[in-house]
């Protein structure tokens, strides 16, 4: 028997079962909270901080994707302050790498573009960093362009938790952080990658893509295998 908690999100009375996250309960009730690292079917990491919400009585913001609902919680998911933070995060996601939508495989079906549009981010006040980053096109089917990676780590989680290969991981710190395959081996030399394509499917941007796809011609949505992923994830208690 699972306990049900009643709480309020943005002034709306809602109910969620014990163990459910604020994000899940909000979405079940038609309250949209922006997210980037969260993806139904894989575990949550709280990496992007876009889903931060205010909880009455707490001086700190909490990530909705990682915070369990509790009885009597008063959650603010939308406020001027949160919007300002979410816009700032969106800007950072853009300027930390080199996003050139006009020549990107994900153009027009990119979750980062969607996010900017939804939040009304029309330009960046933060300066461009112009980092010199790599492209690894050594895999026969796929490639990664780090210029477009936002470090959501969906690829890392899907490869580990669903495919069970754990080809992806992260290396370095801060602005130098990179996702990498097999301890820094070229992806094409990876002994663990099964070429299943799951990482490419879950990448919210044009960082991971199928080779041979032209500008704006990458495949993203729908993600047909995700319902199945969800089942697998639930079986494994993720």
């Amino acid at each position, binding site marked *: 028997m699972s306990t049900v908690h009643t709480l309020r999100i943005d002034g709306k009375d809602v109910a969620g079962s014990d163990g459910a996250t604020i994000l899940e309960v909000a979405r079940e009730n038609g309250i949209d909270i922006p997210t980037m690292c969260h993806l139904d079917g894989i575990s949550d990491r709280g990496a992007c901080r876009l889903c931060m919400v205010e909880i009455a009585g707490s001086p700190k913001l909490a990530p909705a994707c990682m915070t369990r609902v509790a009885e009597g919680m008063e959650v603010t998911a939308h406020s001027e302050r949160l919007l300002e933070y979410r816009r700032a995060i969106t800007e950072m996601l*853009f300027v930390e790498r*080199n*996003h*050139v*939508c*006009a*020549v*990107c495989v994900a*153009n*027009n079906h*990119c979750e980062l*573009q*969607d996010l*900017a*549009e939804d939040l*009304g981010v*029309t*330009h*960046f006040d933060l*300066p*461009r960093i*112009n*980092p*010199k*980053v790599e492209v690894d096109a050594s895999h026969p089917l796929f490639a990664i362009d780090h210029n477009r990676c936002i470090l959501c780590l969906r690829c890392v989680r899907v490869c580990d938790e669903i495919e069970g290969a754990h080809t992806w991981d992260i290396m370095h710190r801060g602005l130098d952080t990179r996702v990498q395959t097999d301890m820094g081996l070229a992806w094409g030399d990876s002994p663990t990658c099964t070429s299943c394509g799951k990482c490419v499917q879950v990448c919210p941007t044009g960082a991971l893509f199928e080779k041979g796809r032209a500008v*704006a011609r990458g495949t993203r949505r729908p993600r047909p295998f995700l319902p199945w992923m969800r089942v697998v994830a639930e079986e494994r208690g993720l």
Partner: protein
Amino acid sequence: MSRPRIATVWLDGCSGCHMSFIDLDERLLEVFERADLVYSPLVDHKEYPEDVDVCLVEGAVSSEEDLHKLKVIRERTKVLVAFGDCAVTSNVPGMRNPIGVRPLLERAYVENVTINPGVPTEIVPALLPTSVPVHTVVRVDVFLPGCPPSADLIFTLLTDLLDGRVPDVAGARFGR
């Protein structure tokens, strides 16, 4: 009241934003029934005039010349619009930024050239160290992202400005 004066400028861009502007088609007549086009790559004026009400600036700021033009434009313009992704983010022209000017010019004018290799130093304006968005150099009043922004968005923007409203750029997004 005198008629509103509109200008359009082409800095470091591909002219695609101007093509989209021309895509206003018959709506161009609607706009220019109410306003004058006083300066543009599409008309034959050499000097950017005084007292411009609205200027659409296409393109990133990539050279000394772009920089100089833009400063004059800002001084003589009431509402300056960063028009399209190159103006807003530096977009494709900015792809050279991580490379640096020297290696870039060497690659283009020396390494890949068989006849008269050499980096030009005359006639063409010097490149800035990086190609930068318009608002990092002068104040921008309105941002219209898009590569290019659609004719519909441009039309809404211009009519909003001509009607004295704050322009509604909802639906504008990076890329297309």
